């Protein structure tokens, strides 16, 4: 599919979705409004809320804080996940011993931990970053851990026979081989970084999109809630495009997908 075609189709999907939303939120079907406006608002209201935010400029302050938190959570969580993932994969004993504990920690409801983060990190951005990190870290960690273990035995043996020490194996064999695993987890965790930041703000803050959403929710302003979530999602796409760019650059060596061949 050509690039303009693709953009057109994407636009079409958006338009159809919005139209359906508007329809079901305003026109009763079988005497019942399927998406009651009290819970779903409607695209027009949400859109005008977004326009108002941007035209008045109030959104920027909040948006920048949330983006900054998300990016920090994403970067710190990913780096942590990659490092620990590599470490575990290369130290099978450590991994075996700590394996159940990692899984236990991953199952802790982060919402409950919020007061502890506030205690340690205050009410500023860092407690939100921490919340995001606890989500991103595990997603990246599990994938990198598995990715490193998936290295082809022959290629690994070749590295060994070429005289690579552990550090060089890491750089020339494990790292490039685990890259596609890593990037897959990064695509997942971009979203989770944002979720972490917003939920953190939602639980306690003075600014940020989560704060806006919470305020809107408090006065049953559903349009405001949805507007906040939309703005958020749109920016996730931007961060994700950045990840994709890096991915393309680092994975030039891959054969094109099989699709392109038949």
């Amino acid at each position, binding site marked *: 599919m050509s690039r303009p075609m693709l953009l057109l189709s994407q636009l079409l999907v958006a338009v159809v979705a919005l139209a359906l939303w508007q329809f079901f939120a305003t026109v009763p079907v079988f005497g019942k409004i399927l998406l009651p406006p*009290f*819970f779903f608002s409607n695209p027009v*209201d949400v859109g005008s*809320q977004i326009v108002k935010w941007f035209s008045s400029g109030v959104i920027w302050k909040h948006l920048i804080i949330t983006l900054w938190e998300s990016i920090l959570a994403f970067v710190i969580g990913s780096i942590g996940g990659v490092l620990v993932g590599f470490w575990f994969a290369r130290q099978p004993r450590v991994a075996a011993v700590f394996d159940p504990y990692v899984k236990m920690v991953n199952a802790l409801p982060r919402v409950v931990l*919020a*007061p502890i983060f*506030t*205690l340690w*990190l*205050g*009410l500023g951005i860092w*407690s939100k970053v921490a919340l995001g990190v606890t989500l991103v870290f595990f997603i990246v960690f599990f994938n990198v851990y598995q990715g490193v273990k998936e290295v082809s035995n022959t290629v690994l043996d070749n590295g060994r026979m070429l005289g690579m020490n552990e550090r060089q194996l890491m750089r020339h064999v494990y790292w490039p081989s685990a890259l596609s695993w890593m990037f897959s987890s990064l695509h997942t965790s971009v979203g989770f970084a944002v979720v972490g930041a917003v939920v953190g703000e*939602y*639980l*306690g*803050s*003075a600014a940020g999109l989560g*704060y*806006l959403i*919470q*305020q*809107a*929710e*408090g*006065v*049953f*302003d*559903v*349009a*405001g809630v949805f507007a906040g979530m939309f703005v958020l999602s749109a920016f996730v796409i931007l961060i994700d495009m950045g990840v994709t760019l890096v991915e393309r650059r680092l994975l030039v060596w891959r054969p094109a997908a099989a699709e392109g061949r038949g």
Partner: protein
Amino acid sequence: TAQSKVTIAVGGGACLCYLPTVLAKQLGEYEKAGVAVELVDLKGGSDALKAVLGGSADVVSGYFDHCVNLAAKKQELQSFVIYDRYPGLVLVVSPSRTSEIKSVKDLAGKKVGVSAPGSSTDFFLKYLLKKNGLDPTSAAVIGVGLGATAVAAMQQGQIDAAVMLDPSVTVLQGSHPDLKILADTRTQKDTLAVFGGEYPGGALYTTTAWINSHEKEVQALTNAIVNTLAWIHSHSPEEIMAKMPEGMVGKDKELYLAALKNTIPMYSETGKMDPKGAEAVLAVFSEGSPEVAKANIDVTKTWTNKYVEQARKTTGTSSK
């Protein structure tokens, strides 16, 4: 003079019960009194309290009952200005159960929503049940929060009744004008009927240690709130709404105004604690929590009117 900076943790800024804290900021009362205040919104009163105990905020703007509750945990907290003289808790019957549930007694064996198990709303329910001669555990308690979840659960009849706060109550009343209300502590009448006196709701409180080491700030905050309360009672609901930040009012201005009108009587005129109210809080919590009942709490240590009285002297506020 250099302004000192104070962070106030609000236990859910959107609740109308906390309005004076926000309004004071909008009116510039804090600056006038000589403190720079940052308001931080937390999900609920207990989160705000934890933020203060953990040292990331200085003062809680939240329900006074936590001071009593935590006295049982050997945490010394003290309120220094009360801005809600009624708690504003409303026991509402689900629109679809209006015919079945006529009084609190009918709640036995029913599903009743509270904001969260263990919260003030939960204790309020237990107290009401007990007062009406029922076992406090005879109703099944379901946590539904305070916002849209609670409204949805009520509208769909997933719960039979709920303890709610404004603006949720007003929202329900908007779509169900004949909404059955079993107890409405936004009003003086019901509050007196239920608790036998004024019952403190929202207050500024913090650790005794902080109060003792920051007398100047405490006084300034008290002054600001007392002045704001005076302002509220000398202005119309429309004027109050006009002062509130747009985000907090939301798009449905009529709803907000209606809820505000329902709530205004609940704001204190003086900022003072009614000692009987404090006793009532202890009574309510002793009912629901054996731990509180056993703890031998000296409730007078959990509040002080010293600063309010000082405020009234210095600012010579006109309200009575």
